[in-house]
């Protein structure tokens, strides 16, 4: 573990990413305590610029809502959607990839054609269609993001399983009479975990970008304050109050950047062999 930390911390970007992410998480946790009032409630006159009034650090938006409160509450939504949709995508992708790689032949063919299909159709357009047809609640937002983002997981897991399947310890497990399911779950997947973790951290970043794009288009839960919604709502007043779209965008960018950096750091820390090859 300390070895892991050592390698992770050698990547300076990854450390910065982690600090930013911890800060965003802290904001998300602190939101209901720091801003107990709903982020939708009107607190002051509209279009109050940032740094002008005590207690309203970032001013107010077109409807007099506290921008800082929106940012804090938006952090909750972004992180929640990013995390949960990634977990859902993993639960779709891992079994498909594992089965395809482990059983091979027809199963592999069928599952991979299925995966390819989902990889071919334009993912953002599919997410839009899904949300336009079903209710735009947070649950559906998460589900549609998961539906469009699982294929890379399946392909990665399949490749990992393929490279592990013929190793001796798997043969040993087969000989010792373990069931296929048990071998996949207890022998193969733990060994395939490092690249999955790296991919997952990058997927959270992509999911956050997707969520913000969807809510920018007005396809997210209308009762939930999110960064994308804040930008979308401020779009019409871009000329007069540019900061209203600028600030939430910075929040999205920093969070996504942090997650990407963390992904790279995890990659360095979890694949030490790859690292030494690069040197």
């Amino acid at each position, binding site marked *: 573990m300390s070895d892991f930390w050592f390698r992770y911390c050698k990547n300076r970007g990854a450390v910065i990413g982690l600090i930013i992410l911890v800060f965003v998480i802290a904001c998300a946790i602190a939101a209901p305590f720091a801003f107990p009032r709903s982020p939708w409630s009107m607190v002051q006159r509209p279009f109050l610029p940032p740094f002008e009034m005590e207690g309203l650090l970032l001013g107010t938006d077109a409807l007099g809502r506290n921008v800082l409160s929106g940012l804090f509450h938006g952090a909750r939504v972004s992180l929640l959607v990013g995390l949960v949709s990634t977990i859902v995508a993993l639960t779709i992708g891992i079994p498909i990839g594992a089965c395809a790689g482990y059983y091979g032949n027809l199963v592999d063919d069928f599952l991979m054609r299925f995966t390819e299909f989902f990889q071919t159709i*334009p993912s*953002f357009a599919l997410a839009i269609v899904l949300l336009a047809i079903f209710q735009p609640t947070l649950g559906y937002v998460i589900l549609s993001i998961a539906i469009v983002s699982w294929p890379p997981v399946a392909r990665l897991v399949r490749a990992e399983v393929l490279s592990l399947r013929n190793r001796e310890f798997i043969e040993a497990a087969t000989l010792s009479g373990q069931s296929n399911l048990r071998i996949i779950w207890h022998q193969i997947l733990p060994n395939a975990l490092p690249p999955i973790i790296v991919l997952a951290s990058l997927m959270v970043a992509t999911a956050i970008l997707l969520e913000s794009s969807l809510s920018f288009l007005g396809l997210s839960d209308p009762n939930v304050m999110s960064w994308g919604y804040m930008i979308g709502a401020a779009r019409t007043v871009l*000329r007069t109050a540019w900061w209203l779209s600028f600030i939430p965008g910075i929040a999205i960018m920093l969070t996504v950047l942090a997650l990407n950096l963390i992904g790279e750091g995890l990659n360095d820390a979890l694949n030490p062999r790859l690292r030494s090859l690069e040197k």
Partner: protein
Amino acid sequence: MPPLWAQRSYTTLQLREHILLAYIAERLVKAAFILIAILVLNFMLIHAAPGDPAAVMAGEAGAADEKFLQDLRIRFGLDQPFTVQLWTYMKGAIQLDLGYSYRQQMPVAELIWERLPATLLLTMTAFVISVILGVVAGVLAAQKQGTWWDTVISTFALLFYATPLFWFALMASLLFSVVLGWLPGFGYETIGGNYTGLRRALDIGTHLILPAMTLGLFFTAVYMRMTRATMLEISRLDFVKTARAKGLRNSVIQRRHVLRNALLPVITLAGLQAGQIVGGAVLTETVFAWPGIGRLMFEAINQRDYNVILGVFFVSAAMVLLFNLITDLLYGVVDPRIRITK
């Protein structure tokens, strides 16, 4: 009769041609299957929508009284069994009948057809910009590895990679159009400009710059990182060492040996980009009021005009498919190894 390839008159060239043809045929069949699958998915989505599909098709057309719905049901065969409906739907879609938009009082196919050129222009330009800019910057960063060139390029790539497209679109139009006034921030051409010929092309071109740059942004970053990484990786391989030992000049090695091989993953990525770029077009066209199918989709979302939404979805998926097919074929031609291993 021995197999064709064993006959004496069968030359290597013919063999190559046959492998290439078989490869093309395989890709075409695959594309056809995916297209059919997309149609089935589209059809199922209409039926998965909560409520009566007739009501879904009518949207909030306002005219959703019982008689209107009944007409719709008969017209689209919604009273028929499921499989018959699917068949009718597919037959229609293959003949490019994508239904009717009650909002716009126009067949969906016509609406899309009208808007498609603008989208093609935008996406193609964005694609070309991102490939050129990304590869050039990536090569530069790799060759100047460790210098401030590399640092600047890599940092920008990292930032662009994390920037939400729609936000960048807003900020770009604010900066270049509102504050600096250099470029038009919305639309396809100057309204009331009535330009013709070259003037018009130039006018459209200046309108194109901001949206195309925005749409290509993310993939510029992707290509930068990719090209840089592959260039560095390939530079370490043995055949490059051999070339160096042979006494070739570094510029020749970089160009002929390294870059050539580093371009292969770019082609693979280009296939992936197609899907992203079509999705990104919805955001870009919305912000820049670009009159393409992406904006059409955005309008349709706001009006819950399901036929248009699904129509645009189908057409964009078909576009991606076509693009993938082209990159696949390109790949097969550029890299002979692919054809044989596949």
